[in-house]
């Protein structure tokens, strides 16, 4: 891939009322070499983007259920249509909750089993390195990214969980400690086509040395999250 091809790839980042991490997600796109485009929840126009990130936060104050009201925002109709047509979509934290409420991903998130808000540097195992958002990782690779949530416990019935496992759709699992009681330690999943990925931890907060989690290179030196954004830009150039 060439730098000029990367620069033409546009990744939209949606802002809902109550979104917190849209600027960090846009910054991650830019650091990976792409162009970030701000998308507004009330505008159904995707402005010609090639991929979409639904960032973290507390859209609509998590009223009713986390992600439940955002699902009905005008922009989401376009995102759902585009995702069904194969456009890469990444949901981070609240974005993951929105993707489950929009039925683009199975399961749901409920309150953490220990009832506390949790904020930590979390180790994840990459289990599927074949999605639009994980191709720059290797299967089995350990990555460290921040995790911060209240309603982060992934739940689904056993049949759905068995299906996800059998089809290789568990993309990330928590390593060392299950921080929210998620079923089978699941941190992130994908749809059958591999273009839609959702996870609770925050790769967009681990993209620039000096501002990331601790790593072997030193304190705050971790950039393990950058692979999400280089992966999708690579997928777009190949497509």
């Amino acid at each position, binding site marked *: 891939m060439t730098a000029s091809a990367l620069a033409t790839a546009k990744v939209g980042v949606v802002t809902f009322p109550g979104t917190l991490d849209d600027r960090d997600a846009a910054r991650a796109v830019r650091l990976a070499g792409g162009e970030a485009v701000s998308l507004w929840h009330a505008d159904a126009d995707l402005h010609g983007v090639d991929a979409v990130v639904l960032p973290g936060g507390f859209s609509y104050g998590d009223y009713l259920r986390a992600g439940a009201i955002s699902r009905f925002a005008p922009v989401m109709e376009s995102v759902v249509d585009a995702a069904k047509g194969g456009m890469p979509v990444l949901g981070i934290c609240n974005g993951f909750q929105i993707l*489950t*409420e929009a039925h683009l991903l199975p399961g749901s998130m409920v309150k*953490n089993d220990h009832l506390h808000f949790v904020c930590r540097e979390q180790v994840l195992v990459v289990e599927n390195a074949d999605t639009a958002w994980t191709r720059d990782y290797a299967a089995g690779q350990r990555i460290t990214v921040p995790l911060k949530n209240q309603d982060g416990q992934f739940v689904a019935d056993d049949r759905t969980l068995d299906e996800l496992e059998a089809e290789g759709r568990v993309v990330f699992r928590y390593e060392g400690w299950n921080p929210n009681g998620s079923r089978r330690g699941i941190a992130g999943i994908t749809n059958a086509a591999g273009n839609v990925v959702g996870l609770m931890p925050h790769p967009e907060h681990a993209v620039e040395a000096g501002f990331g989690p601790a790593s072997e290179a030193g304190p705050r030196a971790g950039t393990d999250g950058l692979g999400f954004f280089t992966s999708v830009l690579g997928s777009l150039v190949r497509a």
Partner: protein
Amino acid sequence: MGRVVVEVMPKPEILDPQGKAVVGALPRLGFTQFTSVRQGKRFELEVDGEVTPEVLAAAEQAAVTLLSNPVIEDVVRVADIEADAAATVTSQGLA
């Protein structure tokens, strides 16, 4: 003005962390007889005029599409609360 009540509960197989916190707090106030608590949601939907069968049907539709998430919750009640005398008496009694 009519009013429809919709009640939503976490599915039995889903751990209810809020209910767990409440059941842990009850004995501290001397309520030692309650062995389990599950916490749900109650919605009151107001309409102009009577609660007709069409209004109830629309409330049922709203209950399963927006007010609950079938992955984690069950709709346990959709009812016209003005017509439900027992419920009205209970709520007035508690108020």
